[in-house]
């Protein structure tokens, strides 16, 4: 039982990651796929921050108190970088989707494939 409580947050985070992965695989809409990617990314951020948490700790900002326990700052730094890079990735993906919509007049993956099958040269 104590194990289940200690690992509960990891399990929910894995559930959320799999929700994002499922959207990316099973949905044909390109924007929906990128939404799934965002879901997956945020869940991974959550997983990292979970690993940095120390029971009874406080935010890693130095104060004049030697008895204070700090949470781990290293995962925070990694995730700060990852958040910004993640937004850059989705921005490029969305720009590509806008261009695809202009060329094919659809953002559904299977319809784009059908159009391309009709005219292999284009």
């Amino acid at each position, binding site marked *: 039982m104590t194990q289940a409580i*200690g*690992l*509960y*947050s*990891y*399990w*929910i985070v*894995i*559930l*959320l990651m799999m*929700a994002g992965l499922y959207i990316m*695989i*099973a*949905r044909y*809409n390109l*924007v*929906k796929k*990128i*939404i799934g990617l965002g*879901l997956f990314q*945020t869940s991974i*951020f*959550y997983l990292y*921050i*979970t*690993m940095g948490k*120390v*029971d009874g*700790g*406080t*935010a*890693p*900002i*130095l104060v004049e108190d030697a008895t204070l326990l700090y949470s781990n*700052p*290293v*995962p*925070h*730094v990694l995730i*700060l*970088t990852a958040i*910004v*890079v993640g937004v*850059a990735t*989705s*921005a*490029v993906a*969305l*720009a590509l*989707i*806008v261009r695809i919509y*202009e*060329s*094919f007049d*659809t*953002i559904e993956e299977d319809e784009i494939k059908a*159009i*391309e099958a*009709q*005219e292999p040269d284009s």
Partner: protein
Amino acid sequence: METLVAIVLLTFLAIVAVGIIVLRDLLGAVILLGLYSLIAAGAFVVMDAVDVAFTEAAVGSGISTILFLGALSFTKHEQKPRGNDSVMALIFVIVTGGLLIYGTLDMPHYGRADSPAQSHPDLAVRFIEVSGSEVGPPNIVTSVLASYRGYDTLGETLVVFAAGIAVLSLLGLKRRRPEEESPEDAPGDTPGVKPDDVQSQY
């Protein structure tokens, strides 16, 4: 108490994720994704990651949502219904998730102070002890970000710059709404006939 708040927020996240899966309206799904980021930011505060929380609230929940809404204003708001949900995808996701959960059984429990990530003498322990005198700022995250892992941050800046160049070269500086454009035929379409019209003839 802290753990209880974290668990409640996690449960909220799970509910929002289910909402994103079932919702067919893309606008609603984008707003739910923003809500998801915001709840995650709240949970980050509970887990002492204040810097990550405000970055997530501003960038993940704010800028990201605006980018999605901007993209949706050029495309369609509705995801087309599909008859059969992919069984293969479901099986793949369940197997992957099961393997990951099996992997967590060996992981240090939530909040443990003696886990390797917390106790390695050259990483977190050293940063907490000497960053105040070595670098200066009281915020340890700032010290690590700008000094100990400065090249990492430089690389991040390069990635953002490259992404900006990529978006500009894909879209150009001037952008018009699709309805204002002169009627232009997409490759693969019969000129003057939309795909919907072709279908409605049969």
